[in-house]
């Protein structure tokens, strides 16, 4: 009970920082604006295609909003998450170290795990809020395309994919933030690291050797594909959850070991 109370105290404090500073507002603004732009273009393209299709007499095979609009938008937003995630995590520990407030946390009856979890959940919560805000665009489809609304299941799994993938970055970013007292350094390091992990997935090709396949498997985008199609495969979810767990484990070990070296 106290553990939960401690974690939520940290979450509440981090949210106060996020919304008391421009960070949360800028992140929300950039995210929803890009979501809207991507959505607008995908949707216009979709309309053009469907009109051309009708003209050419292919109207019998209805085109899927899910496949042609929603999945590509969510895929694009994954790239945006790659850029925004360092913004959300870079100050988590770096700023506490710089201000000397880590000493306050470390001398309070909190465990390091509670501190790490609280900070990660605060970032993940803000990120989830961003995804929800973006979803408002898609919700409009139920209003305007009420005759043939999109399937909700691929949207749900797609958003789950986006949330899980972004949370991997946030967990890793939390770890990177423990390494320095300078949040800019933490931000840049996190971004480079995220980019590296992102590109691992590019190694995947049919003729690749086993080693390359393993590396590609670790690529963070590889596991989004099925989820975006609406296929909820346990192995993808487990991959993301263990990635998050690993990131948080590193953050925890880092904080714990600094106590000994300090």
């Amino acid at each position, binding site marked *: 009970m*106290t553990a939960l*109370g401690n974690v939520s105290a940290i979450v509440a404090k981090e949210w*106060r920082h996020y919304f008391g500073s421009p960070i949360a507002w800028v992140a929300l603004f950039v995210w929803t604006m890009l979501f809207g732009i991507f959505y607008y273009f995908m949707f216009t393209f979709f309309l053009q295609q469907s009109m051309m299709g009708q003209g050419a007499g292919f109207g019998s095979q209805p085109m899927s909003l899910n496949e042609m609009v929603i999945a590509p938008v969510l895929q694009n937003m994954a790239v945006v998450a790659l850029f925004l995630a360092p913004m959300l995590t870079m100050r988590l520990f770096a700023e506490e170290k710089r201000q000397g407030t880590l000493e*306050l946390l470390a*001398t309070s009856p909190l465990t390091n795990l509670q501190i790490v979890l609280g900070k990660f959940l605060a970032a993940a919560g803000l990120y989830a809020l961003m995804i929800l805000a973006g979803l408002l665009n898609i919700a409009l489809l139920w209003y305007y395309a009420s005759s043939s609304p999109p399937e909700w299941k691929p949207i749900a799994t797609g958003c789950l994919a986006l949330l899980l993938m972004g949370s991997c970055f946030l967990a890793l970013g939390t770890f990177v933030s423990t390494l320095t007292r300078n949040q800019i350094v933490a931000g840049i390091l996190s971004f480079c690291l995220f980019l590296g992990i992102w590109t691992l997935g590019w190694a995947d090709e049919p003729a690749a050797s086993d080693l390359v396949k393993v590396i590609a498997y670790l690529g963070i985008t590889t596991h989004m594909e099925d989820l975006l199609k609406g296929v909820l495969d346990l192995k993808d979810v487990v991959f993301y959850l263990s990635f998050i767990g690993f990131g948080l484990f590193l953050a925890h070990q880092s904080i714990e070991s600094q106590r000994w070296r*300090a």
Partner: protein
Amino acid sequence: MIEVSNLTKRYARHTAVSGVSFSVKKGEILGFLGPNGAGKTTTMRILTGYLPATEGIATVGGYDVFESPLEVKRRVGYLPETPPLYADMSVSAYLDFVARIKGVPGRERAQRVDEAMEKCRVGDVRDTLIGKLSKGYRQRVGLAQAIIHNPEVLILDEPTAGLDPKQIIETRDLIKGLGGEHTIVLSTHILPEVSMTCSRVVIINNGRVVAEDTPEALTHRLRGSAGLRLQVKGLPGAVFDALRVVPGVTDIRQVRDDAHDTATFEVEAEPGREVRPELARAVVEKGFGLLSLGEVGMSLEQVFLHLTTQDAAEAPAAEGAPDAGAEEPS
């Protein structure tokens, strides 16, 4: 309340604290005195569970700092050298957050925050962002943070550093007011502070305890062979000869000519021997006028210098060790 025995903290290249032992009783205010880099901050950080010790045992309220850190942290309020404040939070929001993580139950929290603000006189800035506060206010918010969960033990690292004289006096009064109710350990390198607020002093230098006693006893003990000062009316040379032969006197100096026939002398006597009656008799019997006779107390300042420089001379190797890291906030 606090027991520290043989505490040692070694870093890769140097030893910040070595073999420090002391104890603090309930309700006592212990002054932790030493020059910068002596190991005060390191010791306090170990006591609060922030740093693990390399060797030795520290217990607070019966709980081992290393074995049950959470129990210790619940009982300790800590003000580090730089108050751990969030610049973008208001004073009341900050104190509320600290109360939460210190485990103050929800229904008592608002009341505890109000009490702490009142005790530390920061109520008038409760809605101000901490980043906009002056140094004095920040220090007081730091103190409010330390007492918010009504801890049995308060550990204050240089609580008056960087304050102006008026604020220093206010802070000292505040600390004195907290004593009795709380057990307090405070560190400082300002000596008058110790004699004014503390019931006991531990002097630490180069990571070692060089003295531990009450401020009075410390000055008394270090006076060593009791120094006496006399002002006598009479020819200085003759007075000098008369005093020199008083039994028990080991040394005599004329420190000042006050007038052509009046001089002030300082007399050192054998330790523990009361020579004042003899001195007075000798002066009067020779027909001189005894204007004053009193003890020369070594001020705490002199005691401190004496102890810390003596120690450095005894251990020149330790002096060369880089101590800078010990006091740096990491």
